């Protein structure tokens, strides 16, 4: 009767921001990003991509509770960069990697089908 709709798990409610961030009050170049309606899928690739950036001193994510449909990504960078810059760069790099992967798959499918036909 009063069960929440199933889609509440992945649809951002109206009036809520998908991403919000809060800078650390004590540490320079540190901030926490709260991403609504995301889970380990995004959290883990984002964290691992941030680790590839030498300007990132710390990057981690947590899923605070399985019934709170959000993740919190914390980033601490060196002075050459900033959390928002590192965050945006990580997303850009992941997006380009996937664009590349898509192309690689298309090419590989063509090659595979040619090979099967015996060209």
């Amino acid at each position: 009767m009063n069960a929440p709709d199933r889609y509440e798990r992945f649809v951002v409610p109206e009036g809520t921001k998908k991403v919000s961030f809060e800078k650390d009050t004590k540490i320079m170049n540190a901030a926490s990003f709260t991403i609504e309606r995301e889970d380990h899928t995004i959290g883990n690739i984002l964290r691992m991509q941030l680790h590839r950036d030498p300007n990132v001193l710390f990057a981690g994510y947590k899923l605070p509770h399985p019934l709170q449909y959000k993740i919190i990504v914390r980033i601490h960078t060196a002075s050459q960069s900033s959390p928002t810059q590192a965050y945006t760069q990580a997303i850009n790099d992941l997006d380009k990697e996937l664009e590349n992967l898509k192309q690689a798959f298309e090419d590989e499918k063509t090659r595979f089908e040619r090979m099967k036909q015996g060209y």
Partner: protein
Amino acid sequence: MERPAAGASYQRFPRVRIRELRDEYAKFELRDTDASMANALRRVMIAEVPTVAIDLVEIESNSSVLTDEFIAHRLGLIPLTSSAAMSAMRFSRDCDACDGDGSCEYCSIEFHLAARATDSGQTLEVTAMDLRSTDPKVCPVDQADAAGDSRGILIVKLRCGQELRLRAIARKGIGKDHAKWSPAATVTFMYEPDICINEELMETLTLEEKQSWVESSPTKVFDIDPVTQQVTVVDPEAYTYDDEVIKKAEAMGKPGLVEINAKEDSFVFTVETTGAITAYELIMNAITVLRQKLDAIRLQDDDGDLGELDAHLVGG
């Protein structure tokens, strides 16, 4: 420590090699990326690539032995051909052509089923093939076997005199909402193993010792060359990371006989679909969905004090 200027790219360029590709099955190698990417793709394939499934059932008449909700549940689990789900169709909840009540062509497909058993001699099998779709693009997946014998998925059996009549609405959805929308039967990946035999140490073994060592592996990873009597790796991927051969080597007093490491940037994927979409479509759609997800979490220009925040943070 010397640090590069911000704004440099740390992008990877993954490589792919397809080993097997059929309509509902794919096996491929993914290299030059990490486990987080492999796992994200796996998770998206299972839970976030959209398909079409029956979501609303109006029973007109049901005198079968199964209850209305039991039948409705079974109908929901029938895979429907869903190539249209990825881009052509809308989710009912954000369809503005209707109120999401399932009466519009953009977000729903209607099905009808009418069956009545009249033969007193035998029971009537009502299958997915009795579902009449109003859209030829969306219909129950053809379950024909190799012999071309197509019987469809069994929904209910009717005895003489029993009847089932209903109207069903299929909608677009994702596996995260309900597993009936998942296009994936199985999606798995394994780390490619790097198996290195210490040949020098191996040659100190007698043929019988080699034999018993090879046989200690529960899966057939190693074999002995009948001519040279050398131990060879015949199928590295048969290795299940069970450590049995390593324990056996230690028990034989030959630690270090073999070294097995998981390559951290190489994966072997197995993808099987329900037939709703092809395995290739599933992979491609998963990449698209993951990119859409990444796009959705970008910081917006109107994120208030973004510039101010950067100015403040960079200052230190």
